[in-house]
């Protein structure tokens, strides 16, 4: 597989954005990392926002009013989608890292993606019709 020789050397950060010669496993990894970064940002914001609970009812409740904004709800949908993919793919990585189901890792990824997409659609419908 001479494809492997063409893979970008990612010890330079700008090579992270080289989209050539990547197969589906690479994209699974990239998506895992992207969702990870999104979730880290969410975690930070979540912890800070919850701090308003110590500032009396008005502080937190006015944030909740903000959270009814459709743009905000869309952001929450992104978090749900990211968490679904990252968690499910994480389970898959955990399995293969311990030698389980390695010959099926590609099929498992399709299952992960399917559940993540379907779950996100279900959440989208429920979040925007609430």
């Amino acid at each position, binding site marked *: 597989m001479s494809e492997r020789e063409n893979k970008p050397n990612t010890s330079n950060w700008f090579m992270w954005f080289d989209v050539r010669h990547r197969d589906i496993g690479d994209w699974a990894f990239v998506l895992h990392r992207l969702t990870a970064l999104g979730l880290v940002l969410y975690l930070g914001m979540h912890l800070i926002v919850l701090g308003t609970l110590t500032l009396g009812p008005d502080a*937190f409740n006015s944030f909740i009013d903000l959270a009814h904004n459709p743009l905000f709800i869309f952001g929450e949908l992104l978090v749900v989608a990211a968490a679904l993919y990252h968690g499910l793919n994480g389970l898959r990585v955990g399995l293969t890292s311990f030698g389980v189901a390695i010959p099926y890792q590609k099929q498992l990824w399709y299952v992960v993606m399917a559940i993540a997409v379907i779950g996100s659609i279900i959440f989208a419908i429920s979040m925007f019709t609430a």
Partner: protein
Amino acid sequence: MNNSISPPKSGQNTWLWLLKMVTGLLIVLVLSVHLIVNHYLPEGGLMRYEDVIAYFSNPLVVLMEIVFLVTVVPHALIGVRSIILDLNPSKGSTRLINWILALVGATAIIYGIWLALTVASLA
């Protein structure tokens, strides 16, 4: 299997990897509990300040949220560390990064536990 495409990363640690794996699995479980208890158990979910305060009057809830915090923060920061290690930092830079991440983690955990206990006391 030797991947000669990129050189092996320095700073990689077996125990940190294992911790990332274990916390990852725990997060899947605790996060499910967290979401179900937050959104489906209370009537209409946790909507306003009063709902959250009442929710935190249950010590099991406080415990669950603290367990969640203590699993998510290390998992997130070890993960961030892995991404940074891909840039092949020097030994000195790696040690600095380790310290910064550990500090951020300790701060987040102490803050989170303080927050959980404070909100619980407001009930």
